[in-house]
């Protein structure tokens, strides 16, 4: 009941966030010189101004900014993201084609970074000050400080080109026409390097947070109480330390979703993955305003949704979060 009430309230408060974000971005893009028609004309090698005017009228680009913003928001309310002039199909369709790759990349990276970071963090905290802790902390810092594109490129050079263990790019082997389980294995094989690249940075963060959080919780009074109750070390650790130490970790997931989306632009570019990040980059270059706005809308929706889930998870874990 408490969690349901919380969920309802969070849902209501996240709607204004979305609207403000969309209006802001819409206006910002108006300041960028050139529009879709300019880009189209440039692609077909120029044309006469009359045709450009005609095209602008066709796409509704001749109207005033406020009217177009109004139209845009009105359409969004019915989940109509508009039509992409560049791709020649509805934006929703364009995004739907690209979304799975990004979700797959982000989801796997997050799961990988979170679980391994958690495990290593606990391990480091248990051996604080000893050599495994020092090694892990140093490695974590190295991963954290290295740019992900460099990791990606070096990964390709070493594991794809030199060793030939994994493919250098792409989401799957398009020519093979695999189906079912074989296709899953193929996609997984393709994703090993990109996921590792994207996850390593976040893994380092999770490791450090988990280690610090564990160390802090272990000094708290209730852990001493648990020991004084005669509980075994395993029970003390899992029931009393771990759950309390997890709270900042879970909050971090919400905070990092946005950063991870940003990171996936780089990783998708390096590994030629047909994802949302690449699409965003392409639509900026092509002045494809509708697609870009659509991507921002979907990304914002994604971040808001993840944060919403994180809030619920936190409330589930921590009874002190009041409804």
């Amino acid at each position, binding site marked *: 009941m408490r969690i349901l*009430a919380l969920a309802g*309230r969070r849902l*209501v*408060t996240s709607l204004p966030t979305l609207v403000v974000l969309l209006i802001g971005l819409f206006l910002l893009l108006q300041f960028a010189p050139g529009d879709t028609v300019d880009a189209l004309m440039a692609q077909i090698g120029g044309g006469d101004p009359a045709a450009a005017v005609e095209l602008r009228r066709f796409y509704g680009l001749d109207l005033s900014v406020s009217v177009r913003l109004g139209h845009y928001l009105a359409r969004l309310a019915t989940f109509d993201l508009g039509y992409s002039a560049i791709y020649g199909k509805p934006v929703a369709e364009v995004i739907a084609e690209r979304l799975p790759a990004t979700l797959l990349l982000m989801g796997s990276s997050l799961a990988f970074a979170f679980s391994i970071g958690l495990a290593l963090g606990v391990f480091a905290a248990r051996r604080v000050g000893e050599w495994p802790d020092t090694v892990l902390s140093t490695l974590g810092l190295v991963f954290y400080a290295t740019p992900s594109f460099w990791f990606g490129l070096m990964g390709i050079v070493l594991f794809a080109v030199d060793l030939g263990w994994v493919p250098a790019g792409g989401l799957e082997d398009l020519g093979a026409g695999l189906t079912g389980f074989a296709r899953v294995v193929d996609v997984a094989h393709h994703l090993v390097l990109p996921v590792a690249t994207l996850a390593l940075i976040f893994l380092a963060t999770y490791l450090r947070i988990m280690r610090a959080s564990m160390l802090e919780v272990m000094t*708290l*009074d*209730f852990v*001493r*109480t*648990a*020991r*004084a*109750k*005669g*509980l*075994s070390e395993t*029970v003390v650790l899992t*029931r*009393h330390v771990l*759950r*309390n130490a997890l709270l900042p970790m879970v909050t971090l997931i919400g905070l990092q979703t946005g950063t991870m989306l940003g990171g996936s632009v780089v990783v998708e570019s390096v590994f030629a993955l047909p994802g949302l990040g690449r699409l965003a980059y392409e639509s900026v270059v092509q002045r494809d305003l509708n697609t870009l706005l659509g991507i921002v809308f979907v990304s914002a929706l994604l971040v808001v949704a993840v944060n919403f889930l994180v809030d619920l998870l936190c409330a589930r*874990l*921590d*009874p*002190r979060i*009041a*409804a």
Partner: protein
Amino acid sequence: MTEPLLSVRDLTVALPPGGDRRHALDAVSLDLRPGEIHCVVGESGSGKSMTATAIMGLLAPTLTVEGGRILFRGRDLREVDERGLRRIRGREIGMIFQEPMTALNPLHTIGDQIAEMFRAHTDLRASEIAGRVEKLLADVHIPDPKAAARAYPHELSGGQRQRAMIAMALALEPSVLIADEPTTALDVTTQAQILSLIRELQDRTGAAVLFITHDFGVVAEIADRVSVMQHGRVVEHGTAEAVLDRPKHPYTRALIAAVPSTVPPKRAARIAPGETLLEVEGAGKTYRTGSLFGRRKRVVRAVDDVTLTLERGRTLGIVGESGSGKSTLARMIVRLIDPDHGAVRIGDVDLASLSRRELREQSRRVQMVFQDPHASLNPRRRAGDLVAQGLVVHGMARAEALDRARRLFALVGLDPNGIDRFPHEFSGGQRQRIGLARALALEPSVLVADEPVSALDVSVQAQILELFERLKRELGLTMVFITHDLRVAAQICDRIAVMKNGRVVEVGDAAEVFAHPRHDYTRTLLAAVPGCHWTPDLGDAVTPFPVRREVYA
């Protein structure tokens, strides 16, 4: 005499190198017999809590037991392995801690945490455990045990949390209960209830209780035997009666002499009654919580229409339990909190109606001393700067202000050369002196002191109270003194205002309020003062910790 159940023999624990002394515990010996309450009393750093931790085998890894034995039922716990110790902890020796809020896991229900005892030590089925938990909660007199078992720690009051903690410690009927300052974090009326609960349960189960406290009042209330600790040594032990009424060791005598009496000293009517300096009229502050989207609204009247007056040269004590609004009132008087309505007049100026700018000019009329001497001094500024800051802000040249700071240091009993030091280089009592010097720097008409001695050990407390007394005499200070400790209030205050739920329920001369309380709540408070029927009488031979020019460590 019965055999001791638990016997600590010459226990010595080494501190890590670089500490202020070599041993945290130095040949500590004490015996705990069945059915008795043995109080270990001492000031902070005396090693009393560490003795308890060492018995449980839960010392921090940086501390090592160098020697001695901890005999429990004839077995040396130092030779028992970790597995064996786990079987003893909780089942044979239960423990309760000072702060029940932090000592309970915030993420598990009370019932679940008590049930853990049974799950760890017995093979009972879940349904049986649930029944046992409920019975335990009923035994410690928690209203509605079923609901309490389902509640999370933050949903209970401080007293109920401590009751739950006691229920947990007693779940498996251990023969020894170690209580480490179990009532220190509680209000005085709650403390009285918890003390009587411990007595009651101890009577019923026949357990031996090792009770650690810094408060001689509490000792007088419940102890059968007493061990007094100082610097890691037991300096005196004996029956409660012997130690309390005929203390032999000079340290014990000084400690007992430092306990403020509940009888206000006879004061000469040295001040001609008359000129009213501070006037609080109909002041109120209400807090509302609740957000835009349907959160349950709560309205708390922190201070509810309070009217008080204070004459020049006198000290008004505001006493009450936590949540009574006494600190809010203090903050309103110096206008750290803006009152919703009402007036706070000092002389002819109404502080409550001043603009921010005017207030800055008038701020020298009233200054404040805070409770926590550790948190209330900026750690990155020199002590002298902290004292001189107010003067500089009000337009005095820095050199002159520092010179004044030096004189103020001497006035409050600090070495004037200490102005170049940083706050962390001073002890708690010295820091409180700095806080006092800072407040006095602007020569305020009224000094507001919010629990200025509550964070201090009893010996230091006695010195600071003595300092307040001297300054009252020498400077003719007019003071509002906020405290939860009625003993302290009895010693320092001329008038007493008792607050409850934001209202002043009784005001009167200190002697009158203590001797003939009119309001029921005042009577309850007075009756709850631990050891209120015990008045230490050591003759005139002992001076409690004479105020001396303190030496820097």
